[in-house]
């Protein structure tokens, strides 16, 4: 660790991983309720499980991004963080607000929660992924602003690099587009249109900038490749992200009440969306091939390459499957969307956080050369278990989606939703099985933190 203030990243990383365990656990509970509808009902209805599952994901990614930023910004700017104290206060405020919100979901019926949290003053609740009560949403704004302030002030007083510029642009976009979460028109269609400004432009635009910046930072560190070279790649990747991702929002506007021209604009732009991810693969593998140093922390590079590959498959390939308007007519609102959602969030975002933690955590724990060989072996096993689990889960959900389409939407002998879902029960069991595998992989990953150095040979 070159700068003492980088240490503030540590609690962010640890908390992100704890939240990830919770996220997967609630995913498993949902997976079981999908098969046995009486499971946990009426104690925890499905919508509550899902809210906890998706909200934990969003919050853990934000914690991960923040930890990654606080770690990399001092090194990039070659100066201490502007205010490590603010970063720690932000951590506790965000952690407390996050835990309180989850407990609220679990122990207060949602309708009551809306009343308790002044939703009638400014109704923002009850929309997918943005279910947070008003105080939590305001809290997120405050936390993000303090984070943005801290990073900006650090960048201003230190060295400016392409990585910090891209990162800051991404963070600014994240802050700006969250504001649409407060705009809820009475017209459902208008509401949905602007809802995507937060949801899509986070995931398929601004977050990709953050992802690109973190990936570039780790690759510089573990391959020793010249910064000029890395910068060029980073610019290319985010250029493709911006060109395709912004207008790619249109792929959500096909069949929700927006005008017809989105059918064309959305299809064409989002057909280009796999490109930045393809470039990420080329980037990671080219840098690994041309590396100037061989870092002892081999797992960091493994995760970096894995992020590029899984991000491409999950976001790029699985997104492309259903992004053309004539195909989307049949896939819209089926399990195929869930399949794509799972692998893209995991491949692009959860894995970039693993990448950063895998690189930074050993250093934060006083091991500049990475964890010992034995620990890395365990970590490599966890890498494969989680990846296989996620791919299996995604394939199962894709199969479920295809059956659903054939049952409900193609041909003349159609059956209803509930009947179709019953016919898919076997596939849901396979999905749940792979979900358990993902969780086992995460536990293996946790275990790798506690593998002790082997005693030195005399």
């Amino acid at each position, binding site marked *: 660790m070159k700068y003492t203030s980088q240490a503030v990243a540590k609690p962010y990383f640890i908390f992100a991983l704890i939240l990830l365990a919770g996220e997967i656990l609630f995913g498993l509970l949902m997976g079981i309720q999908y098969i046995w509808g009486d499971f946990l009902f009426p104690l925890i209805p499905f919508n509550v499980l899902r809210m906890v599952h998706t909200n934990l994901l969003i919050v853990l990614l934000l914690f991960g991004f923040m930890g990654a930023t606080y770690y990399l910004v001092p090194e990039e700017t070659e100066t201490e963080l502007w205010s490590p104290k603010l970063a720690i206060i932000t951590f506790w405020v965000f952690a407390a607000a996050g835990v309180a919100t989850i407990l609220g979901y679990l122990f207060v019926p949602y309708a009551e929660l809306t009343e308790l949290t002044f939703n009638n003053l400014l109704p923002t609740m009850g929309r997918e992924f943005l279910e947070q009560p008003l105080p939590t949403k305001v809290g997120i704004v405050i936390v993000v602003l303090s984070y943005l302030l801290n990073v900006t002030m650090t960048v201003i007083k230190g060295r400016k690099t392409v990585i910090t510029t891209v990162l800051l642009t991404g963070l600014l976009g994240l802050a700006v587009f969250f504001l649409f979460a407060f705009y809820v028109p009475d017209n459902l269609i208008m509401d949905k249109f602007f809802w995507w400004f937060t949801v899509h432009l986070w995931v398929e635009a601004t977050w990709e900038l953050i992802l690109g910046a973190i990936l570039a930072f780790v690759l510089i560190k573990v391959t020793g490749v010249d910064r000029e070279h890395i910068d060029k790649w980073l610019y290319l990747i985010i250029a493709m992200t911006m060109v395709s991702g912004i207008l790619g929002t249109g792929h959500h506007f096909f069949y929700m009440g927006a005008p017809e021209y989105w059918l064309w604009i959305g299809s064409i732009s989002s057909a280009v969306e796999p490109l930045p991810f393809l470039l990420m693969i080329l980037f990671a593998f080219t840098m690994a091939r041309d590396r100037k140093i061989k870092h002892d922390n081999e797992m960091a590079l493994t995760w970096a390459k894995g992020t590029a590959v899984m991000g491409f498959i999950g976001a790029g390939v699985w997104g492309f499957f259903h992004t053309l308007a004539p195909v989307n007519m049949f896939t819209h609102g089926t399990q195929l969307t869930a399949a794509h959602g799972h692998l893209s969030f995991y491949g692009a975002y959860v894995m970039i956080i693993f990448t950063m933690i895998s690189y930074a955590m050993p250093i934060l724990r006083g091991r500049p050369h990475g964890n010992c060989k034995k620990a890395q072996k365990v970590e490599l096993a966890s890498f494969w278990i989680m990846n296989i689990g996620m791919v299996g889960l995604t394939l199962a959900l894709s199969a479920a989606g295809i059956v659903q389409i054939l049952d409900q939407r193609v041909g003349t002998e*159609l059956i209803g939703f509930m009947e179709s879902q019953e016919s898919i029960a076997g596939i849901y069991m396979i999905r749940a099985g792979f979900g358990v595998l993902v969780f086992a992989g995460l536990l293996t990953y946790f275990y790798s933190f506690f593998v002790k150095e082997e005693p030195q040979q005399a």
Partner: protein
Amino acid sequence: MTERITKSMAKNIYYGGGTFALMIFIALTFDTVHQIPKRSNQQNMTESVVAGKKLWEKNDCVGCHTIVGEGAYYAPELMNVFQRRGASDEATFKAYMQGWMAAQPLSAPNRRKMPQFHLTPAEVDHLSDFLIWTSKVNANDWPPTIEG
């Protein structure tokens, strides 16, 4: 391929291309906002429809159902439930909704359960009005079939 592209070229594509895409997006946003009231028949958006939307949000219906194809995939699509369960007749649909909402949760073992939301008959009517209004939105001929 990448050898021929310099860092400053890549940078220009990012700023130029990004700004260009953003400008088009903003222009189309203005046009879409202009068109949505007509496509969604905003003139028919009565107080009851708006009250129904608020109930829809207050009870997190989207946490299990999809509407206009968006939401969770645990329970049926509701954009065309008016056609599916009400045969496109308002009185039939409203009567159906009163019965259906009162009967929850169904006792069928291991069937996915919908909670009892304790809505008043007037509130159920608001919800029905909201779903009827939604069913008439011009969503480019989606959903493809009555089964949603």
